[in-house]
């Protein structure tokens, strides 16, 4: 069986260097059949490989990148401006900047794989980045998966709480993160939806890279929603929602879902899931739903465009 292969890359966004990371099963060889590209988009509080390629001591199967590499995908992620190993600037890395990051990253994907399109998965504000990217670059998004997504923010318990610190998000382009903060991400919705040790493993990895992250997505989520338009997303869409996720109400998400124009769309609630589905106790259910959406067979009729 082929071994896990990984490679680092750098994308260039008008002089801002963005770190990219790729994993697939076996090194790509000239003449290989192209593997479907899955591009993972991180959220507000931890960088790409930290969240999507996490290894938790003594606990198996936390790397989403490796899981989908094993399924046959060519899996990419990127550290957005100001996160992880990417350059930090005076900017606050708001959603619109994230869209520009993804455009720079997609150019690298195309250069390395020949693929002009990819399936995009985003979690939390990563879902906002991915959805806004699909609005702006519909030709390069084959399928869109939005997890822990919020559209208007109406009635969101998490955003109501977060807005109390709006002065903090506006007064500085970065906010401090520490171990206690990483614990809070996994406990704020419902203790018991993640295993012990996960938040510490994530903190270990992320705090080795930085002690602060940009404030732009927090600001956008408190002040500027909606930042994406469902009527501009032409591709198939999957919305995944953890049962206990406080980032949005189900009503808000169903309104977005209802407005999506593509006839291929799925809305899946994961019971026993919270805000970070892919690092939760029930992540196998999350993989199952995501994998089945990505491998949905093609249409056989002649009516489809």
């Amino acid at each position: 069986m082929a071994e896990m292969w990984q490679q680092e890359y750098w994308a260039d966004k008008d002089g801002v260097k963005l770190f990219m990371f790729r994993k697939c099963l076996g090194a790509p060889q000239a003449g290989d059949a192209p593997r479907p590209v899955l591009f993972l988009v991180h959220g507000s509080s931890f960088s790409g490989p930290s969240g999507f390629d996490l290894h938790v001591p003594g606990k198996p199967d936390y790397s989403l990148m490796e899981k989908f590499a094993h399924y046959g995908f060519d899996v990419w992620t990127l550290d957005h401006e100001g996160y992880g190993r990417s350059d930090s600037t005076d900017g606050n890395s708001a959603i619109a900047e994230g869209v520009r990051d993804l455009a720079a990253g997609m150019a690298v994907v195309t250069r390395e794989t020949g693929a002009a399109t990819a399936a995009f998965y985003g979690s939390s504000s990563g879902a906002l980045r991915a959805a806004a990217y699909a609005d702006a670059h519909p030709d390069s998004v084959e399928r869109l998966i939005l997890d822990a997504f919020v559209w208007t923010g109406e009635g969101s318990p998490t955003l109501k709480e977060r807005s109390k610190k709006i002065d903090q998000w506006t007064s500085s382009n970065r906010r401090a993160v520490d171990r206690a903060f990483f614990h809070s991400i996994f406990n704020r919705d419902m203790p018991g939806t993640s295993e012990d040790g996960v938040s510490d493993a994530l903190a270990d990895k992320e705090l080795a890279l930085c002690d602060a992250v940009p404030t732009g997505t927090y600001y956008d989520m408190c002040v500027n929603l909606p930042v994406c338009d469902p009527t501009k997303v032409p591709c198939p869409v999957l919305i995944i929602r953890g049962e206990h996720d406080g980032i949005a109400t189900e009503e808000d998400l169903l309104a977005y879902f209802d407005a999506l124009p593509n006839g291929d769309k799925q809305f899946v609630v994961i019971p026993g899931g919270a805000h970070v589905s892919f690092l939760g106790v029930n992540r196998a259910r999350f993989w199952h739903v995501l994998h089945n959406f990505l491998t949905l067979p093609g249409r056989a009729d002649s009516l489809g465009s």
Partner: protein
Amino acid sequence: MNQTQGDTAEIIAEEYWGKKGDVDLFIFRKRLAAPSDTPRPVLFLVHGSSFSARTSYDLEVPGHGEYSLMNVFARYGFDVWTMDHEGYGRSTHTDGYSYIADGVEDLKVAMPIMEEATGQTTCSFFGSSSGALRAGAFANACPERVAKLSMAAFVWTGKDSPTLKKRAERLDEWRATNRRPADEASYLGIFSRDVVGLTIPELPAAAAAAEMANGGGSVPNGTYIDMCANLPVVDPLKVACPVMIFRGDHDGIAADEDVLNFFSALPNKDKQLVMMSGQAHNTGIGINRHRFWHVLRAFLEMPVRLDNLEG
């Protein structure tokens, strides 16, 4: 995910009979002949208004590939059951109308037979069109029997349904007699009413031939009357189990909003709403049925929960 057996794997077909008062109810079962180390999960398929069980779920269309949902899911490893409701197929054709409520009673009769044969007390239900209404109403009445509920071509209140608006124009006709003809012409109408091109041209004749072979030629009017005059017949708040709703993009039986409202009201947070392009009302026997199989299987084979929060 269960291992899929090849097309040549032997499938056992068995017939059973249930008794609802004086009414004989035909029950049909398919599963792989090869023994299984573990009990095969039971999938019970509930037919709709216009086709009996085997026309709906065990259809043969020679030269056009697999049409039998029973065969497909038997190969996936399921123990697949279905039944002819009162007045349909090989079940007794009575003077009754075979309303949704009668369909619930039919399913109650089938359950002890399924339990005795399989040793299992619950099963996953799939229903299409008024079969989804029967299955949903059964889940309301007998939640202890329903492990999972999948509904395709479902309508809740009927508000803004193009198909039901049209159907209601003939409500007096449905009420005047308990049966209506079911033949090639009527099937052509069903397959083409939403859009042309999502079923093969040979399907109406194949369905009519199957229906005649199964004792058909006419079907009861009760579900048509219920869908025109008596909706809603399913209460989402009383559905306790995980639910998947499957909706074709061309299906005129319901408005999106009606289906979304039902989905939103479901109390179990293990729920999925799958909308699919290239699908009309008869998803199971359409050109893109393989896509429907994919999502139904994915729902039925969802890994178990590992948290301790399930209340």
